[in-house]
Structures are given as structure tokens and as C-alpha cells.
């Protein structure tokens, strides 16, 4: 490790950890789970009511105990299925092959709809 390596490492870590704290601090508990398929809204569900949602037969979303998780996807990657549960506003689960985006919104983040369109 020479000096420039250490500076680069420290700078990138600082950006990463700083961004982590900034985004964490601005996230409140979510109230709704929004499902979009290929950019269009498929449905929105209250996060505090347990429910299992079938999305076009390709994916299954489970809302349980105030958080959401993808329990099934028909693709080989299984990236979204392996992701941990989401519950705070702004957090999302993305299934790229089926173009499905699960977004959590809170009372304070109604503007988020415009972003997901």
C-alpha cells in the first residue's frame, strides 16, 4: 500500500459510510408497499397488514410483520429473493429480469411516486 492507495481507500470509504448515514437518517418507518411492473403501478398495500401477493405469476411478495420480502421469482438469478426484508421508506426490492420494483413509502415520501414512473 503506498500513500495514494491509502488516500483512495479512505476517501471511498468515507463517501460510502457518509452516504449510508445520510440515507439512513432520512428514512422513516414505511406505511405502504408499492409494486410497479415495467414502470406502471401494479398495486399498493398497507405494510402493517400481512398479505401474500402474486405478481403476474412470475414473482411472489410477502408482507408480514411490517416488512416486505420477495419469496419467489421465476428467474435463475434469484437476486431479489436473496435480499433481506425491507420496511423503511425509500427502501426497495428490484427484480431486474421481470422489471418489478417493490418500493416502501412513508407518510413523508409521497413525492416518491414521481420518481418511480
Amino acid at each position: 500500500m503506498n500513500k495514494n492507495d491509502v488516500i483512495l481507500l479512505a476517501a471511498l470509504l468515507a463517501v460510502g459510510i457518509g452516504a449510508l448515514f445520510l440515507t439512513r437518517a432520512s428514512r422513516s418507518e414505511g406505511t405502504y408497499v408499492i409494486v410497479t411492473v415495467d414502470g406502471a403501478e401494479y398495486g399498493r398495500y398497507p405494510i402493517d397488514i400481512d398479505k401474500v401477493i402474486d405478481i403476474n405469476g412470475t414473482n411472489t411478495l410477502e408482507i408480514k410483520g411490517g416488512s416486505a420480502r420477495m419469496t419467489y421469482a421465476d428467474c435463475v438469478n434469484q437476486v431479489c429473493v436473496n435480499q433481506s426484508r425491507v420496511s423503511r421508506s425509500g427502501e426497495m426490492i428490484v427484480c431486474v429480469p421481470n422489471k418489478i420494483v417493490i418500493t416502501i413509502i412513508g407518510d413523508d415520501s409521497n413525492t416518491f411516486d414521481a420518481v418511480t414512473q
Partner: protein
Amino acid sequence: MKNRTAFLGVFCALAVVLGYLEALIPPFTGIPGMKLGLANIAVISVMYMTGVKEAAIVSAVRILVIGALFGSMISILYSFCGAALSIFVMALLKRTGKFSIRGVSIAGGVSHNIGQLIVAAAVVETYGVFYYMPFLIISGVVTGLLIGLLGGAITGRMKGIWKI
């Protein structure tokens, strides 16, 4: 130079085997896109032993082979954009001569993750996926450093064995 083809073949094979090993490790972080990137040990070693062009060739071969064996079109697209950005950034940093293989590898790890995130954002047409960015920057630094340390160890030991 005569055995350059054999040399690149060996490293392509190494990259594919490392990719296979990686596929055997179950995802445990719960954050999409976060992985070790073991195959990059072969890529960065080639970059330091021969050159950027050869490293790009090895990288392209392993993406196609690993993608066809264990992935899908989407995962190939992901890897391709991640690898393209990371090789570009690593080549730039290497050219400055101010960084060691470790620093170059750290930048490569971070830019690889950013490249993949850009693809994800483009495919699902949502900027929201950048919410993963902080996690992927941090994991890129850590895995990049590990890969750089291993790549440095390999290139150091290979010097006397294989004259390119």
C-alpha cells in the same frame, strides 16, 4: 511472446474456475450485487503481467462462459457493464503510475459495482436503485482490496516462472 496464447488461456480458465467457486458461495449479505468477485483475481493479474487489452479479453471470455454456465442474459449484461467500467477505471489509474495494484483494484471493485447499478437503473427505469449505492461502494472497497492483495501476491510470484 510465443506462449502468450497459452498464457491467456490459462488465465481465462482460472477466471472461469474462480467464477464457479463464487457461484458455490450462497449469497449471505442480503444486498443484491454484493459479492467477492473472485474471477477478478485473474483479470487484474493479467492486467499487471501483460496489459490492459489482454485483461479485457480474459474478462470478456470469463463473463460469456460463466454467464452461459451459471447465469442468464441479464447477468451477462450486468457483468459486462460492470467489467467494462471497472477495466476502464483501472487502466486509467494504472496509467497514472501513482497507485499500486491494491489501489487500482479498489477503484476497480467500486466502479464494477457502480457499473452494475447503472444497468439496473436503466433496465427497471428507476433511479431509486441507487439507494443500494452506499453498500456497494463499501463492499467494492473491501473486496477490491482483497482482490488487489491476492493479485499482487500472484503477479509477484509469477514473475520468475513465466516470462511474457
